[in-house]
C-alpha cells in the first residue's frame, strides 16, 4: 500500500510506521516523519484533557485526497497519515505524517504540505478542558482556528 490513511482512537507506533515507509527494494533515500503531540499549558494553567471530534464520513476521504495531491506534486514513494480522535491527555500523540522519497526535498515539502492542508481542511475539532490554576474548577473551550495556519496553507 503506497498511501496509508487511518483515523483511530488508538495510539500509533512511530517506529512501526517508519519501517513501513522504507521501501524494501532500497530505492528509498529519505524519510520525513512529523509527530504532533498534546501540549500542556504554561503553569499555573494546566490542560486536563483534549477531546477530538471529527466528521467520520469525511475525514478519511479528505486525508486520502491530501495524499493524492502530495503524490501529484512531488516524487514520493510512500505516505502515511494517522490522526487520532476521542479523549487525549497532555503528552499524547495526536497526528503522524510520514513521507518517503528518493530525495530529501520531496519528503520535506510533501510532509509540510500535508500538515498545512490537514490543519485547515480536515474536519477535526479540538475541545480543551483546562484548569486556569491548580485550585480552580475545570473549564472547557473549543479551540479557535489560527490565522497563521490559514496563511501556511495558502503558500502551497
Amino acid at each position, binding site marked *: 500500500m503506497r498511501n496509508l490513511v487511518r483515523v483511530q482512537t488508538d495510539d500509533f507506533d512511530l517506529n512501526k510506521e517508519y519501517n513501513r515507509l522504507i521501501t524494501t527494494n532500497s530505492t528509498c533515500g529519505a524519510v520525513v516523519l512529523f509527530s504532533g503531540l498534546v501540549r500542556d499549558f504554561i503553569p499555573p494553567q494546566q490542560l486536563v484533557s483534549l477531546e*477530538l471530534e471529527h466528521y467520520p464520513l469525511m475525514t478519511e476521504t479528505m486525508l486520502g485526497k491530501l495524499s493524492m495531491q502530495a503524490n501529484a506534486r512531488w516524487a514520493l514513494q510512500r505516505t502515511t497519515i494517522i490522526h487520532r480522535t476521542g479523549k487525549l491527555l497532555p503528552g499524547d500523540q495526536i497526528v503522524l505524517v510520514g513521507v518517503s522519497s528518493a530525495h530529501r526535498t520531496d519528503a520535506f515539502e510533501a510532509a509540510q504540505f500535508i500538515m498545512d492542508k490537514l490543519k485547515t481542511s480536515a474536519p477535526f475539532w479540538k475541545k480543551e478542558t483546562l484548569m486556569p490554576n491548580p485550585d480552580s474548577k475545570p473549564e472547557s473551550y473549543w479551540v479557535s482556528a489560527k490565522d497563521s495556519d490559514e496563511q501556511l496553507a495558502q503558500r502551497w
Partner: protein
Amino acid sequence: MIKVCFFADLRERLGCAELFVQDFSGENINQLKTFIVKQHPHWEKIFLEKKLLIAVNHAMASNDTAIAAGDEVAFFPPVTGG
C-alpha cells in the same frame, strides 16, 4: 430530503447534530440556509457567521454549491485538528 449535519461548537450552539430537511425546492447552499432559517428563526445569527465552513457529500463546498435531494450537507466551524 437533505441530511444536514452540524459539528463541534456549531452543533453545541444549535443544540442539534443532524437535521433532515424535507420539501426543499432550492438549488444551492445559500437557498438551503434561507430555508432552514425560515423554519428555525433563532438560528439566523449563527448561519450568518462568515467563517462557517460547508461540505457537500464529504467534500468542501461553498454558498453557491449546487445541491439536490439525497445529498448530505454539513456545516461546521473552521477546523482545528492536527
